[in-house]
């Protein structure tokens, strides 16, 4: 988690609230903060999304370029996901190459999209073994108020849904919408004193024992998972987290993605 300094009083406060079944901002354990999602906010990008999850703000841009495929998948496009924890987003963030937190979150986002088969990569092949489309998903964190992970992956899939393959610009045929088959949604929960709660805010993230992210798809299957943070998780809590996450993911999908 972050290294932000937390007073013991604050930790106790959040813990005691948990014992009463409450959270600092009045939410229930399975309640996600308000989401404001806007797509196509950057005209120069092939697809983009601006997302506000509570106070957390993230901008995701998708760019496509022509490049060479990997030798082990000559007929498939390539996805490259990176995240920048921009210093404007938090006093804790520093400029420079991505550190382990940013790398981890970018890779979890990447795995969710890749493993769910959300993008039909075989349609992104121009000439087999020579030219394919490379999709760059760049996640810029603008304000960190907790749960960057979920905001990123929701922003990423929203940006992908609006993206076009710039065939004309690159002289590779017509512009077509990016072939999207699935909508993986990540839901992150934290374990605080033995209770799991979704969508942690910054304080909850800082005091939690551990954090678990679950990426699920339209058909309810799970395509990615990651435990993060110093604590351990019991099997019971984990399974509870998984079912809560799958349910929340389908709600998010319905309210925010289906009409894009």
């Amino acid at each position, binding site marked *: 988690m972050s290294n932000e300094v937390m007073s013991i009083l604050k930790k106790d406060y959040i813990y005691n609230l948990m014992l009463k079944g409450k959270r600092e901002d009045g939410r229930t354990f399975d309640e996600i903060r308000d989401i404001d999602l806007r797509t196509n906010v950057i005209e120069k990008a092939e697809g983009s999304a601006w997302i506000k999850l509570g106070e957390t703000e993230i901008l995701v841009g998708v760019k496509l370029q022509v490049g060479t495929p990997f030798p082990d998948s000559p007929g498939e496009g390539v996805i490259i996901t990176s995240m920048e924890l921009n210093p404007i987003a938090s006093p804790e963030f520093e400029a420079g190459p991505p550190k382990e937190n940013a790398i981890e979150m970018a890779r979890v986002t990447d795995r969710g999209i890749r*493993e769910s088969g959300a993008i039909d990569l075989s349609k992104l092949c121009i000439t087999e073994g020579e030219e394919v489309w490379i999709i760059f998903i760049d996640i810029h964190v603008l304000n960190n108020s907790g749960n960057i992970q979920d905001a990123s992956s929701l922003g990423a899939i929203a940006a992908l849904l609006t993206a076009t393959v710039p065939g004309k610009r690159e002289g590779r045929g017509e512009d077509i919408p990016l072939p999207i088959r699935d909508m993986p949604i990540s839901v992150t929960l934290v374990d605080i004193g033995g209770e799991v709660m979704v969508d942690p805010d910054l304080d909850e993230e800082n005091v939690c024992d551990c954090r678990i992210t679950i990426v699920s798809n339209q058909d309810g299957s799970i395509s990615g998972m990651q435990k993060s943070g110093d604590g*351990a998780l019991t099997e019971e809590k984990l399974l509870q987290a998984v079912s809560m996450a799958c349910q929340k993911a389908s709600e998010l999908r319905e309210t925010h993605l289906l009409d894009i």
Partner: protein
Amino acid sequence: MSDKPEKFIDENGLRLDGRRLNEIRPMKMEIGVLSRADGSCYLEWGKNKILAAVYGPRELHPRRLQKSDSALIRYRYNMAAFSVEDRIRPGPSRRSIEISKVSREAFEPVVMTQLYPGTVIDVFAEVLQADAGTRTAAINAASVALADAGIPMKGLIASCAVGKVDGQLVLDLDKPEDNYGDADIPMAMTSDGEITLLQMDGDVTQEEFKKAIEMCKEGCLQIFEIQKETLRQKFTKLDDVEISDDEDNVDISTLVENSLESSVDDEGEDSIVVEDTEDDPGQDIEVEEDQDIEIEDEADEDIGPEKEEFIPEAVDLDTDQEDAEDIEVSGDIDDPCLVDGDIAPEDDGRTA
């Protein structure tokens, strides 16, 4: 390299390398293999060859990194350039940075860091040869190396992966299963079954996931036994042998050369280093007590026959499928940035 096997599981329910669905690959461990390290462990698991070393608790520089109330754990997972089919560029990659982070977090719940404020405990896990499941193998080795270093821990950590091939869950993926399977779920847990590492990619249902945890638990129980037995062999021997008797220092090169042909049972006592690896005498007392308790707890049990039970059958490792292994990076949980420097922008070198 699209030589995906047609079937991963035959009509008898056996996998490509002859294992049953819930069987782990043969595992062999040796501790105290490095004379300078405070604790070390060499592990062979299938074709994986891992060397783990622990240094510390020792002074941490720069001082601003010191934690006033606990020791800092640093975990470095590193793959040797020659450990996979196609050479990988040495040094940290995005993949290895992520693995190092989650592996460190897998140990945080058990290592009693509060006993050594202001210090660092360095854990180095070197993958000398990779063949699917290196992060779990590295954790198993590191766990024993920590115990060997006498770091007080609430218990050991064992780790193994569950995957899905041909629509069925299998324990401890081998290379083809890892490359072409439908899911890969590496986990690490304490002996109480608390999960300290969990990653997943692929596609499973909630029910399958539930079953995967159970399978993984089974696998980890077997690994705990191997880990404990390894420790027991060294530390029970310490009791009846004079330290000065030790002349047979294990050479790592011979360890690496010797393949898995000999199962754990075959190693005689002479292959174990009896050596005083403690540099810090102040630590000794703590160490010995800790180890002793662990060992004595288990000493009541009848070790012999039980051990037999937990050692999976030796498998012929020189099968064709094994030879056709893909490189580790492209098959593992991964983005392809690592494979090809031409396409991938090197994020690590980027400035804001």
